[in-house]
């Protein structure tokens, strides 16, 4: 099969899967007594109907792009990073605290990059730990990552409930970051910030590393066949740690830019599942930069649209999770199965 034909087939497959999920959810809505046409109209308007809706779709997509890249990168190397959720919290928290601590003494144009880099370092270490445990002790990275998610989420939750809670705040969140540390908004009065550009730059960088560098080649070689990669002289153990660490740093960026862009502060539990949605995005997007951007836009528009749908049609915004879940089932299941079994057999 030629490359182009396979590509077209994949796109067609994805579209059919999306349509199928919408149809199934329409049936569910009918059974529950809602009007699916009205609901989908609200969903569409909420995602694309106005400049605000569009900005909401984009701002919801940005963190998904980062985590999509993170998971996609690990997948290319034959590793499964389910720890994105934890890395988001660690990255966001470390960056927020660094930013708040430094903002009093150091000018913003230095503080901001330092804070972002320290957040990424946090994600790097958090993800690298998972890789290290896998490389040294041969413990499945999925189990370690899931446990590390709990540690990260609960630890940051403790910090913002206790020692780092904003003064006089009754909600668990840090102080708000000074305005000059927050990313500028692309459209005023929205939550869409220049983090969108950073996400797109990371996509280009990701594509470049995977296609044009030796390291990218090594990663793909490990993903294709770990044993032949090792035989071919690739340092599998070292790369396992490095891939998970870099994946962690990428996922951390999602958290960092939610904190410095969307919210302007670290709020307890702000991610609520971005890290897991990122897994679906990487699978649907086939770990390619374009695919990840498109999948993020799809899920971002679903999330943005679901808000309006719940308002106008009275359907719980949770129905959005059902649509997302079905899209994942239809698109990713064969891939997940292929991935899981293919690896076991080898």
């Amino acid at each position, binding site marked *: 099969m030629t490359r182009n034909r396979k590509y077209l087939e994949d796109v067609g497959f994805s579209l059919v899967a999306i349509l199928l999920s919408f149809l199934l959810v329409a049936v569910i809505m009918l059974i529950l007594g809602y009007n699916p046409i009205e609901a989908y109209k609200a969903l569409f308007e*909420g995602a694309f109907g*106005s400049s*605000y809706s569009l900005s*909401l779709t984009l701002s919801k997509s940005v963190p998904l792009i980062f985590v999509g890249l993170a998971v996609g990168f690990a997948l290319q190397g034959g590793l499964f990073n389910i720890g994105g959720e934890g890395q988001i919290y660690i990255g966001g928290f470390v960056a927020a605290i660094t930013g708040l601590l430094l903002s009093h003494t150091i000018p913003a144009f230095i503080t901001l990059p330092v804070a972002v880099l320290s957040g990424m370092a946090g994600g790097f270490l958090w993800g690298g730990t998972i890789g290290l445990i896998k490389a040294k002790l041969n413990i499945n990275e999925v189990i370690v990552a899931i446990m590390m998610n709990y540690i990260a989420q609960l630890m940051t*939750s*403790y910090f913002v*409930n*206790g020692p780092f809670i904003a003064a006089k*705040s*009754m*909600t*668990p*969140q840090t102080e*708000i970051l000074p305005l000059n540390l927050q990313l500028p908004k692309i459209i*005023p*009065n*929205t*939550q869409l910030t220049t983090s969108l550009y950073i996400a797109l730059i990371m996509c280009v960088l990701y594509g470049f590393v995977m296609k044009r560098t030796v390291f990218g080649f090594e990663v793909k070689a490990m993903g294709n066949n770990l044993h032949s990669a090792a035989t071919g002289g690739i340092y599998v153990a070292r790369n396992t740690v490095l891939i998970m660490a870099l994946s962690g740093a990428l996922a951390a960026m999602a958290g960092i830019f939610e904190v410095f862009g969307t*919210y*302007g502060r670290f*709020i*307890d*539990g*702000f991610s*609520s599942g971005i890290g897991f949605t990122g897994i679906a995005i990487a699978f649907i997007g086939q770990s390619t930069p374009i695919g990840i951007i498109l999948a993020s836009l799809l899920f971002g528009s679903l999330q943005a649209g679901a*808000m*309006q749908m*719940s*308002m*106008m049609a*009275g359907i*719980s*915004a949770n129905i959005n999770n059902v649509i997302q879940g079905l899209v994942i089932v239809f698109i990713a299941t064969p891939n997940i199965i292929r991935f899981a079994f293919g690896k076991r057999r080898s």
Partner: protein
Amino acid sequence: MRRIGIFAVVLLVAASGFTFAQSSSPTRVGCILGVGGLGDLSFNDLVYAGLQKAQKELGIQFDYVEPQSISDFETYLRKMASMKTYSVIISVGYDQVDPLTKVAPQFPGQKFAIIDESLNLPNVVSYVSKEEEGSFLVGALAGFLKKANTAKNPTIGFIAALDIPLLDKFYAGYEAGARYVNSSVKVIANYIGGNAPFSDITTAKEIALKQFNQGADIIYHAAGGSGLGVFQAAKEKNFYAIGVNSNQNPIDPNHIIASMLKRVDTAAYKIAVAAKQGNLKTGKTVILGLADGGIDYTVEGSKVTIDPKILKAVNDIKQSIIDGKLTAPDTHAKVEAFLKANTYK
């Protein structure tokens, strides 16, 4: 030609339908519920009930959203404000103060309302309650009960999530009410604190057991979800508890004797009505108390029988507060002065 004619007719009908919908559009209210959403048997359900009442009685339309986490508030506020279809957008709960402070100034043409917290912004109206009045009544009820069972050192307990001004109102009202009707009663108060003061059932239970060991056999809580720990302790050691905010009596009708009611449904209803009449007091704080139905207490749903004479006495006190003859203290520092100035006859 005929096709154009049909097209024109369709267009005309559509246009007239559109203008019709525009001119007769009813008042539309947007509501951002607290995290937890509907089915919490508390704030969110009450607000929803208040808006439903406004819809039924006055034809006010409302849309509501159930945010999944506190980080969603800002997004929903912006979303609703950007739609420009709502006469007022209601934020439920103190944890929406920060996002509302951020969003409201960016939409000066949009009116907002916040329930349960006071916010000083020109396009926001705040609705808060006189919790001290309802607490005063359940305090008086506890005081009367202690009088009836003639214990040697009559003691009652109060457990709050945090030592903050909002919860101080509950403490002040409760102690003043109890000691107003029963001068020998002693009130012990403790705070839960820690990481999750409003959902720490275990610590609340420990504190309740400790207070029970110190002789308190009626305990009132102002601690949200932590209150369940107080009820568990009451069940275990067989003493009385008093619920808060919504009618919690059915949770354990054999041990919960009464609940102080914070009628946020009244607040939501009043906001919707004011929005329809166009007289929202933006920039101001509206304080609802016993007199306007924003605060109350109830023994409904409890299986503990209370002497009707006591209930009548409590209701008499309620009436004197409504009539303005009695003003419950709203900080604990004012309790002694209140007791000096007022004696129960």
